[in-house]
């Protein structure tokens, strides 16, 4: 492999969606074919490039693109095992979501604008994944905020405007805190390149007090996107966005960016040992546990399907933070693998929710009686996602929870088991009734608003295939968890590199 590729590959991966995205803005509103080609070309190119990167990183190849912005400030895109995990997740799910969005937005206005920002959003996510230092992370994190705002506001209805405004209040406020924390930390520790094992461990202990304050600032900034209680308020509000956007927000981009940031800060800036010693892991663990239980409880009482899923996200994403907060490699594996598993499960659920809404006008859980007979494939995919979320083997969610539980025992944090058990029960309590309704209740005379007639397929092909693909991924990730290059294997690779420094 040539060295030019080594310094270019991360940048190319970012640009593979950025350039088509910029071009899409200029595409005539009615040139569907050109727009779709640009979208697909970008998504496939990115996937191919990511494939090259996975192979390289597995063989301990170094990839780094570095641009100097100012003295002491470099924009760095680099690849390590952790970034590859996230970058792969987002590239694969982007491809699927793009297909879904093309089908979902058929014959609606303003598609060039939508897909332009959609691509920017993925570029920012990939930038977050590949960020090689805290500055780059902050930059991409803020761009992500900017790129998702138009997507949330896309529909232009008063509710959309309101949801987008609330989203913005939270994220810009959080961004300001993150910025402050990052700048402060940089004045103490110099350029904050992400290094496995952290970079603050060698600094004098007199700074530890400031490190604690900074951690709170950073956590507040990242917690907004990761929807940690009490910073989760925007997430249910932004449900007004079109379904592919919700899928993106909840599974791939925004909440994941927050969770990923927490992982980065704990492992590669502070170092898990120092974070533990300063009591920061305990803080994180407590917050995550509260969020998990709170989110599940709120989900229980939601009738709106998307709101229930939204609160479920609040709860599920904190598993990642929870895994991070337990000192020990096994819990780390559990948290990291959940980053992937939650993504594919939740995106399946949102695709299905979108299908119900788009095909039959179903928006509430109470309207779902018998929907499994009208839309069996969609409901099958939904069931796979929901059961995975509860943690039924052999689906993906089971693997995450298993490792989290093992890690908790290994790390001596037995109380986590109680949280896991309670959360699992709550998950079951809010998902199983849906499945029961969908499969076992009789369908109504009329669906609320049947928009897509039943022909050979239960709905448009572009809407049906994506959830089926991701549901299959849920199953495969669980079944073949031990196969090489599976998410679990990769998470173990990361944990190994993190702890066996």
């Amino acid at each position, binding site marked *: 492999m040539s060295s030019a590729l080594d310094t270019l590959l991360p940048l190319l991966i970012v640009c593979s969606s950025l350039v088509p995205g910029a071009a899409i*803005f200029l595409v005539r509103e009615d040139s569907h074919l050109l727009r779709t080609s640009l979208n697909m070309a970008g998504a496939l190119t990115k996937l191919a490039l990511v494939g090259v990167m996975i192979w390289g990183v597995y063989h301990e190849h170094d990839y780094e693109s570095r641009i100097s*912005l100012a003295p002491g400030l470099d924009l760095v895109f680099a690849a390590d095992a952790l970034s590859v995990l996230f970058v792969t997740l987002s590239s694969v799910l982007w491809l699927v979501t793009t297909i879904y969005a093309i089908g979902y937005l058929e014959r609606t206005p303003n598609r060039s604008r939508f897909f332009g920002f959609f691509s920017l959003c993925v570029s920012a996510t990939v930038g977050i994944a590949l960020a090689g230092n805290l500055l780059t992370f902050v930059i991409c994190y803020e761009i992500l905020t900017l790129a998702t705002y138009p997507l949330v506001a896309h529909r232009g209805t008063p509710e959309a405007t309101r949801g987008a405004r609330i989203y913005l209040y939270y994220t810009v406020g959080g961004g300001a805190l993150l910025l402050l924390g990052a700048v402060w930390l940089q004045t103490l520790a110099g350029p904050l390149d992400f290094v496995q094992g952290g970079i603050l461990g060698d600094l004098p202990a007199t700074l530890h007090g400031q490190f604690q304050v900074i951690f709170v600032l950073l956590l507040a900034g990242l917690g907004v996107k990761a929807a940690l209680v009490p910073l989760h308020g925007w997430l249910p509000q932004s449900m007004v966005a079109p379904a592919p956007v919700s899928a993106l927000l909840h599974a791939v981009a925004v909440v994941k960016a927050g969770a990923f940031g927490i992982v980065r800060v704990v492992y590669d800036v502070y170092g898990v040992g120092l974070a533990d010693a300063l009591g920061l892991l305990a803080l994180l663990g407590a917050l995550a546990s509260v969020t998990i239980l709170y989110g599940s409880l709120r989900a229980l009482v939601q009738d709106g399907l998307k709101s229930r899923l939204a609160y479920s996200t609040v709860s599920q994403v904190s598993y990642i933070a929870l895994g991070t907060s337990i000192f020990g490699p096994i819990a780390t594996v559990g948290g990291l693998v959940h980053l992937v598993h939650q993504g594919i499960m939740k995106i399946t659920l949102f695709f299905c929710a979108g299908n119900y809404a788009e095909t039959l006008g179903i928006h509430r859980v109470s309207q779902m009686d018998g929907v499994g007979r009208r839309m069996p494939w969609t409901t099958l995919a939904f069931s796979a996602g929901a059961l995975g979320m509860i943690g039924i083997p052999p689906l993906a969610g089971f693997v995450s929870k298993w490792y989290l539980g093992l890690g908790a025992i290994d790390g001596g944090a037995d109380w986590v088991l109680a949280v896991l058990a309670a959360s699992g029960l709550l998950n079951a309590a809010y998902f199983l009734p849906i499945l029961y309704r969908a499969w076992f209740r009789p369908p109504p005379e009329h669906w609320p608003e049947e928009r897509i007639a039943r022909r050979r397929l239960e709905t448009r092909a572009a809407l049906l295939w994506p959830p089926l693909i991701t549901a299959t991924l849920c199953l495969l990730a669980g079944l073949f968890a031990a196969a090489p290059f599976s998410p679990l294997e990769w998470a173990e690779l990361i944990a190994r590199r993190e702890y066996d420094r």
Partner: protein
Amino acid sequence: MNASLPLAVCLPLLGALATTLAPARARALGLIAALASSGVVLWLVVGVWEQGPLRASLGGWSAPLGIALAADGAVAALLAMTAMVALAISIHAGGYFRDPERLRQFWPLWLLLWAALNALFLAADLFNIYVGLELLGLSGAALAALGGGRAALTASLRYLLVGLLGSMTYLLGVALIYAAHGQLDLALLGTRLGPGLVDATALALLSLGLALKAALFPLHFWLPPTHANAPAPVSAALSALVGKVAAWLLLMLWLGPFAAVTQPAAATLLGLLGACGVIWGSWRALRAERLKLLAAHSTVAQIGYLFLFVPLIQGLDPGPERTALLGALLLMALTHGFAKAAFFLAAGQVQQLAGHDRIDALGGTAQRLPATTFTLGLAGVALIGLPPSGSFIGKWLLLEAAIDQGQWWWILPVLAGTLLAAAYVFRVLARAFNQEPTPLHFVTQVRAELPGLVLALLAVAGLGLAAGGLWGLLEPVEIDR
């Protein structure tokens, strides 16, 4: 000797003469002059890049008897920004002024203004700055009145009078300096000035005059009505360039020749005024009902940011730390120049299409002009200071220096200003999402929309990602003339 320095002043002047003489061909001649002036500035920037700071004496007389022009890296960068913004305004104006008569009046005045801008950036002589300021003030006021309405006339007249007051105050400072030192050349004065009552009073008078023209809080009262009522291309020039040059001169005096005169307390006072400007301007922008008025108030805030740097740079000896901060200061100024010009040009488009610029009633228009709305959005990102704009990096370095030097209180205005800016920018952008029909094409009017879009892109992506080059330009020597 580098001919690009005097030519940077002479070519726009020549263009002004040509467009005065042949008003019927004003647009063609004006565009040629604009291109030529930009070309010369490019030559100048290349010269500074390769040889470091340039100095050209005029008339064959060296200082102290003669007048010199000087360009270091900072000046080169500002001149380049001026040229790019001015070129964009020149192209945009052709689409903006529907009345050929107005266009004929616009061109010579506009080129005179451009000449004044270049002259002031290059000036290395205290009295020469006075003449340049007058040229700037008169041509600026005349341009601002081209809107023709009563509000525009009233605002321009006030602008003219305030400008005159500022110049006279400045000139009084010059007289005191001449009384004490018998010199006018800045480089020579730099070696003579020192702490003491006379120099401090003179600096105070010079600063007062310049602060009036730069609209530094609390001397900003005249700016919003003037900028809000002028024709959009003129507002763009006034906000992005005219205020900037006065602020730059003030900062240059403080950090350059008068550095030995300034005390930390005075620098803190200047920073404090900047902080008040940031908060007050942002707050008023948030409350503004009209788009151009919002932009004008935001200019008050953006000028304020520049002065936050003074207390941080003042105590630093020359070295990498100082250069880094100086670059950050410049980056903020440049980004704001591009962004605010873009914002005003876009606001002008909206105003022309909608017939008004009331923010609550913008919705449909914004949706009908995707490129213009996009411009507003990008410029807004730069005004807020979100990445990847240049002002983000500027703010990062500013915050870093504030924490590093233990002057953490400067964090408050920066963060408050950022949040307020986000609020006022998104107050406008939120109107762009509605259910009105959309046009097929992204750009509807190439000549009127594209210049602003390019400027906004420069502010957001160009300066953000390619900011490293700026320090390359600054590297050899910093402000010293």
